[in-house]
């Protein structure tokens, strides 16, 4: 008994290098292992964006050296930058993963989704495609890279967020989530959305990408791009987002802070070529990630809450 107590007393707190990133990483791995142990058929939502790249990295660590058995699920808007798809496919091959792609375009062609106009942003229509993919593959849990610091509806969501048989989130009646004991139980047809990096901030994500040398699509780093300035945001000039006749096209050094549907994701002006430089910019920024770059969240105070209630990520 005394020997053990001696050993315990000898513990030197200062000698242990335990940073906030270590704490966040361990919390995420604990969550991912709970999913691995308790869920039948997990899908990891992988868009090729930085947050899903971080979640994938954490999942690979959680089960190392085992091959990751979660299915990667990409809900494809077909409004992608080619660099992001290349990255998605490269990473899938590198880690020998099973990738399922379900496209909003197919949902449109099947008549499951009806657009109001042809080049409308497809973010909100991903919900239908996602719910169809969940029922097709009988996924009981979908793991996402959403963070609570992103948006005020996300700030309210549990780490294990229950969705009913219609994929709906009921924000007024969430399951209590006490300590680190997670309730992963669902009935057939229902679904859990699990968010292992709920407690990370944008800066934490970048610091972790730096520490772990996590690969990302090139468009996260500064590059030259033709843009027009509309409503204070930079709108890239692409076949899907052609300039208006009276728009002035500018060639600027930009990078993306988030990666999503081309038609509603705007880059920011930046000369940051490395993760170090991005961290410096992130620490000094005056505007939130979604505020700067997501045109579809600015339509109303509760755009995200309404989308989530319908079954969105």
């Amino acid at each position, binding site marked *: 008994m005394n020997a053990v107590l001696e050993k315990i007393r000898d513990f030197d707190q200062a000698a242990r290098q335990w940073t906030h990133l270590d704490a966040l990483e361990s919390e995420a791995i604990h969550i991912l292992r709970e999913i691995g142990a308790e869920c039948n058929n997990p899908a990891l939502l992988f868009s090729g964006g930085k947050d899903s790249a971080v979640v994938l990295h954490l999942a690979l660590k959680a089960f190392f050296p085992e091959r990751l058995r979660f299915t990667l699920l990409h809900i494809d808007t077909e409004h992608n930058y080619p660099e992001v798809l290349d990255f998605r496919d490269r990473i899938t091959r590198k880690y020998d993963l099973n990738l399922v792609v379900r496209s909003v375009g197919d949902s449109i062609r099947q008549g499951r989704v009806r657009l109001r106009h042809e080049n409308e942003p497809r973010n909100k229509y991903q919900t239908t495609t996602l719910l169809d993919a969940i029922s097709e593959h009988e996924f009981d849990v979908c793991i996402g890279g959403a963070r609570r*610091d992103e948006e005020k509806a996300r700030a309210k969501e549990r780490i294990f967020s229950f969705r009913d048989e219609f994929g709906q989130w009921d924000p*007024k009646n969430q399951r*209590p989530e006490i300590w680190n004991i997670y309730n992963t139980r669902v009935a057939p047809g229902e679904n859990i959305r699990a968010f292992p990096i709920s407690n990370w901030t944008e800066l934490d994500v970048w610091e972790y990408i730096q520490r772990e040398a996590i690969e990302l699509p090139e468009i996260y780093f500064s590059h030259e791009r033709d843009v027009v300035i509309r409503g204070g945001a930079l709108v890239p000039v692409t076949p899907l987002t052609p300039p208006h006749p009276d728009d002035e096209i500018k060639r600027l050094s930009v990078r993306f802070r988030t990666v999503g549907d081309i038609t509603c994701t705007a880059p920011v002006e930046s000369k940051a070529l490395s993760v170090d430089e991005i961290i410096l910019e992130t620490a000094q920024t005056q505007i939130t990630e979604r505020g700067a770059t997501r045109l579809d969240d600015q339509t109303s105070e509760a755009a995200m809450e309404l989308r989530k209630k319908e079954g969105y990520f």
Partner: protein
Amino acid sequence: MAINNPQQVSGLLRFITAGSVDDGKSTLIGRLLFDSKNLQVDQLSAVEASSKKRGMQQIDLSLITDGLLAEREQGITIDVAYRYFATPARKFIVGDSPGHVQYTRNMVTAASSADLAIVLIDAENGVKSQTRRHLYLAHWVGVPHVVFAVNKMDKVGFSQEIYRMIEEECSQLARSVGFSNIHVIPVSALEGDNITVKGDRLHWYSGPTLLEYLEKAPAAQDTEVQPMRFSVQRVTRLNRENIRTNSGFEDIDTRGYQGLVISGQLNVGDEVVIQPGGYRSQVKKLLNASGKFVEAVFAQESITVFLEQDLDISRGAMFSDVSLVGQVSKDFDAELCWFDEDPLDTNRTYLIKQTSNVAKVRLQSINQLVDVETLQKSLHPSGMKMNDIGHVSLKSQIQLSFDSFETNPGTGAFILIDEVSNRTVAAGTIR
């Protein structure tokens, strides 16, 4: 050596605001974010716009944390909103928890991961019944430290006399609930007094501002200095088929145990007891989160353990120090907080989840209920309904390994799940 050194500040503090409805919890967080310059331009302009829409002259700082449509309509907080901010001294995760009694379970959710609770008191009205409830629950769920923010000091003319009365009442109350580390700070969240700067209207107060206090407050308990507990989340059986290509991992045809070091320290060569079952083995190898073999791992780390002996160990098993093992039993007593709209039904079985164990459990008896407002105990109650706290005796279908919650929260805590609805109906602390 630095053991339990209160001067030592960890880089991250998780705290909540608690207290009764309208005592200003959301406003306080809004004020903290605003005054510490942690609000971004677009967040601020969104709050300005919605304040204007509601016909307000000044910006309503409480709108920063109330996120849901229903909350904005009713002007109340239903569920906890998490906010993240930083000062040069520290990073903070804040849970803004609801004050209404019907949303108590959401307050408990927020408190369960907090290092500290800020309990707000309205200087005009003093301690209310919901204040007592939150204080009791914060202590019950394991929040180690409490600070009272005596708010709305502007409404009482910054009166030192009123503050002293409330200070005395709060301190007494916190002690009676079981807190030992208690601070009281006068503030006005609405007008910004003593949040980040003291201002001259509280000239008689000589302590730290709220933010100064938060920057130096101790974080969670030092779980490293408790006896070692490791809970197996998952067994990995490595073979040629499931090992990752190019993983560089050569030890195939072995079994590893993946899980969390709940407390203490584990070293290569240590002898451990594996409960239930009581097997003994030595630690052969330790794989840390970065996929590196290391000599020692510590509390809070997610790791993989390889043992010398080939034993039948599955998810839910607990590894302990040989000389300081925990309890193993099917029968135990607990203090239970009931969350669900459907009352506890002693004729049914529920599922218990404790560390990585999930098992059927039956409530043998409800021994007493605690009135969390008066701290009075009533013996032989007829049942438990939503928001009740009671001492109960439980019987589990399988042997569980645990410590009392007081000595080790990581192994002494559990939740109950309704087998039919799958809802989380209660949380408990083993006594």
